[in-house]
């Protein structure tokens, strides 16, 4: 029943458009992860062509689900979004680690990612880009008030706050409220209880919110124009804004920034696995990784790329992350199935609340 008629139809359409081009790499990734410069270098060196489709976690999974894992040869969802969808929909295929040059990766990050993406003894993902989400704010205006996510609900900031209505917000608020949602991943009842508390907080907080942002550019505009002074967002957003306005930057919240790792995975019906491995080994080279860091604003799991990274970015990173804050980063564990349904209902109710 899973391979429905719709799926077949889409497959047929996708299938027709790809048959003749075995050395084209169809890459499903995030904005900034495959800058033109890197793509050109790769094409020149290998003779392959790369088609880049920009997306986000949810859309990547939805796209792959719709085609049963076809249409793309390499995808880059976050490491916590691999195990669940794989068990549910079977949209990825196992990695042949022998084709990957493991020496290019930071060992600890590689091991952690492998562990988090192992299903039935097979490894499905290797790390690529990592970063955190926390608070992006105008420190001059909100720096004294906002130390943690829950401070976004402070009456002093009424109408000046923005965050997303997505799961990172729920997780972040849960930590800030003294809970440990990651520890409750295995206990659905406990998780539900935590989420209900978060829901109450977010509902109460709603009047403080100017808008729930959905795209990075939208938030940038809100912060840059001063319509919003404090927000929950990715570290890179804060650092980019910092270039224009030194008051605005990324701050790791007291309860800890939330760490994510975007990975490389092979879609189940990918048709150019060898090119995909070539791409992985290519972009993980330190000097290439540095270019990606420059474009995306985030660091990669490439060993030794630090040397090539811009000093300015390093300085901002060190500013935002004092050593104790680095230790405090909460890395997302894989999301068990079923939790997203609970979160979805909470988010819907928050959106609907008055």
């Amino acid at each position, binding site marked *: 029943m899973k391979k429905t*008629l719709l799926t077949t139809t889409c497959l047929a359409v996708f299938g027709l458009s790809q048959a003749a081009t075995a050395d084209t790499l169809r890459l499903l990734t995030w904005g900034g992860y495959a800058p033109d410069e890197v793509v050109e270098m790769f094409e020149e060196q290998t003779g392959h062509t790369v088609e880049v489709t920009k997306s986000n976690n949810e859309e990547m999974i939805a796209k792959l689900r719709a085609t049963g894992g076809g249409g793309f040869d390499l995808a880059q969802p976050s490491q916590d979004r691999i195990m669940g969808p794989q068990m549910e929909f079977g949209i990825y295929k196992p990695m042949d680690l022998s084709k990957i040059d493991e020496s290019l990766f930071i060992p600890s990050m590689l091991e952690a990612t492998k562990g988090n993406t192992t299903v039935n003894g097979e490894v499905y993902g290797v790390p690529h880009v990592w970063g955190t989400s926390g608070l992006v704010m105008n420190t001059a205006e909100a720096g004294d008030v906002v130390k943690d996510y829950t401070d976004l609900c402070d009456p002093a900031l009424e109408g000046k706050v923005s965050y997303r209505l997505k799961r990172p917000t729920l997780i972040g608020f849960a930590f800030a409220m003294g809970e440990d949602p990651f520890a409750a991943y295995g206990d659905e009842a406990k998780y539900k209880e935590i989420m209900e508390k978060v829901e109450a907080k977010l509902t109460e907080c709603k009047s403080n919110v100017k808008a729930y942002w959905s795209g990075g550019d939208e938030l940038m505009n809100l912060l840059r124009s001063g319509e919003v002074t404090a927000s929950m967002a990715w570290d890179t957003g804060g650092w980019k804004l910092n270039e224009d306005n030194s008051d605005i930057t990324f701050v790791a919240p007291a309860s800890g920034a939330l760490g994510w790792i975007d990975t490389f995975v092979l879609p189940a019906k990918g048709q150019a696995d060898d090119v995909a491995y070539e791409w992985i080994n290519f972009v993980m080279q330190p000097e290439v990784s540095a270019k990606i860091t420059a474009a995306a604003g985030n660091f990669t799991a490439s060993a030794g790329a630090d040397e090539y990274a811009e000093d300015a970015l390093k300085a901002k990173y060190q500013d935002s992350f004092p050593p104790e804050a680095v230790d405090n980063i909460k890395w997302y564990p894989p999301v068990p199935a079923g939790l997203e349904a609970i979160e979805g209902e909470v988010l819907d109710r928050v959106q*609907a609340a008055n």
Partner: protein
Amino acid sequence: MRAEARIGFILLLTPLLLWLGLLIVIPHIDMLMISLRERISFGVYEPSLTQYDKALTEPLYLRTFWRTAVMSVLATAITLLIAFPVAYYIAKMARGRLQQVLFMLCLIPFYVSELVRTFGWMILLRETGLVSNLLQWTGLADQPVEMLYNDAAMMVGLVYTSMLFMVVPLVTTLESLDDSVVEAGYDLGGSGLSVLREIIIPHAMPGIVSGCIVVFMLSLGNYLTPTMLGGKDSLWFTEMIYNQFIVRSNWELGAAFGFMLLVLSSVIVWGMLRLTGRTLQETMG
């Protein structure tokens, strides 16, 4: 000869049937089947009505459903109220070049994508936007005014987006109204209002109904405008469908929502035709 004609007919019909079958009928049957099942565990599904039960009992979903319906009807009514005088002016008062220019003016916004148009409104209405600055500059407001992220902004966006689809059918029907029929209405003692009510509106009814149907469906199915202009309280049913399908990966509930929307729009269109005593053939043909 007959056989040849038949083959020709079948050949001509094939693309249409393929189009309807592959892109409309089959996906809908598929959607219906998805909506009628329940996830038990990884990859295991069972036929069930749970999705509809959930959709119809959860107050949030119901509220969004009705809110979307009511707001779409409202948007349609406002569009009609604004478009009617515009269409009347274009069809009956403006002549020659002016008529063409006015028509073009209605069309021009559609040269850019809906996204760009919506961004345009955001630039105008936001707190640091044009209107807010203008109000402060003229002294009508002493601090920045936020006009975005509320139902009014959303309504503005919806009406703006739908305008053309109301104006075109109205202009077409009004143009076919003989001027002397309007004059006869006055000549026989009618006032402006009664001529409008008894002669112009009944004549324009096919245009009004088809315009309303199109605008209603466009508003109901709009995703961008409510999400971008409506802000934090904007609840639009299409957004829920998107969320269920893409964000939550809950295709079952999303498909059920999709079907509810289909039923809703069918019922309202049917009601509109019933109310005005018209048939679909008359209105669309």
